[in-house]
């Protein structure tokens, strides 16, 4: 990493935090696309599947908000874990929103990728 970026690391970190915040909702909806998951599973899925480091305390209030908006629904399941787990699954509205967000994200990422092409050449 160039030294000027390292010295001025704070702005980059802040930018990354904002980027993460902006994409977290889509990341959670995408995690639930294949089926129901409970909170810790969602966190593990985000970390293993995308290497997204998510502050753990952020995910639960966000899940609560998605539930209030009717994008996910939750159910308590008594399982072999010895304690009940709260599973979340996408509602039809949540699936529609996830698809719309995915299309917007893909279109945005492709546009930005195109714009960043000269920078990638510079790096090489």
């Amino acid at each position, binding site marked *: 990493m160039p030294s000027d970026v390292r010295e001025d690391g704070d702005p980059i970190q802040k930018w990354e935090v904002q980027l993460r*915040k902006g994409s977290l909702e889509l990341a959670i909806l995408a995690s639930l696309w294949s089926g129901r998951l409970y909170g810790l599973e969602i966190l593990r899925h985000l970390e293993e599947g995308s290497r997204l480091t998510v502050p753990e305390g952020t995910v*639960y*209030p966000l899940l*609560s*908000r998605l539930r209030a908006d009717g994008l996910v629904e939750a159910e308590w399941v008594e399982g072999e874990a010895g304690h009940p787990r709260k599973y979340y699954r996408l509602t039809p509205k949540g699936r529609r929103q996830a698809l719309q967000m995915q299309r917007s994200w893909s279109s945005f990422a492709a546009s930005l990728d195109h714009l960043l092409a000269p920078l990638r050449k510079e790096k090489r």
Partner: protein
Amino acid sequence: MMSEGARRLEDYLAELRKGLGRLPGAETEEIVAEFRGHVVESAGVDPSERAVAAVLDRLGPAGELASQYATESLLVRAERSRSPWLLLRGLVRLATVSVAGFFASLGLVFGYGLAVSLFLAAVRKPIAPDRVGLWQIGEDAVSLTLGWGEPPVGREILGWWIVPIGLLAGVCGFWVTSWLGRWCIRRLRRSPVRLTS
């Protein structure tokens, strides 16, 4: 006998429960149970204090978590409410985390203030006809008086028309302000800026 790890977890959950105090009891217990499950599963059934502390550290302070839930609950209620007080509380809460929320709460106060003033002017015009009204006090300046104190030096513009216009503008202004307040809360509630880093 309770282990140090278990004691630490119970302290954390007690603080969380305390912070969630204004939420309905069932909702509070559901949130607490979810976090209990998270910690137990992350740290193990009979974990050491260190293991529990590490998990709690990753979750962040209990008070901050509770505040996020309490804010969300307030905003959900405000978004569906017609109560100016609830709308104002919601926007003031948003003002603590975003500039847009600050300006929206100022706008809400101004909107309600103007609507109530116009309505009051309409209601009080028959009581103090010489002192209530809309006055031109300069080239580009007007003043709305409600009959308390002396009227300004200038020309009254609307006369008795202030009654129907004030009633209509007051009611419509109140409605539009409430609608805009709910719209702002809806938009700002879903803003990623509200998430903690």
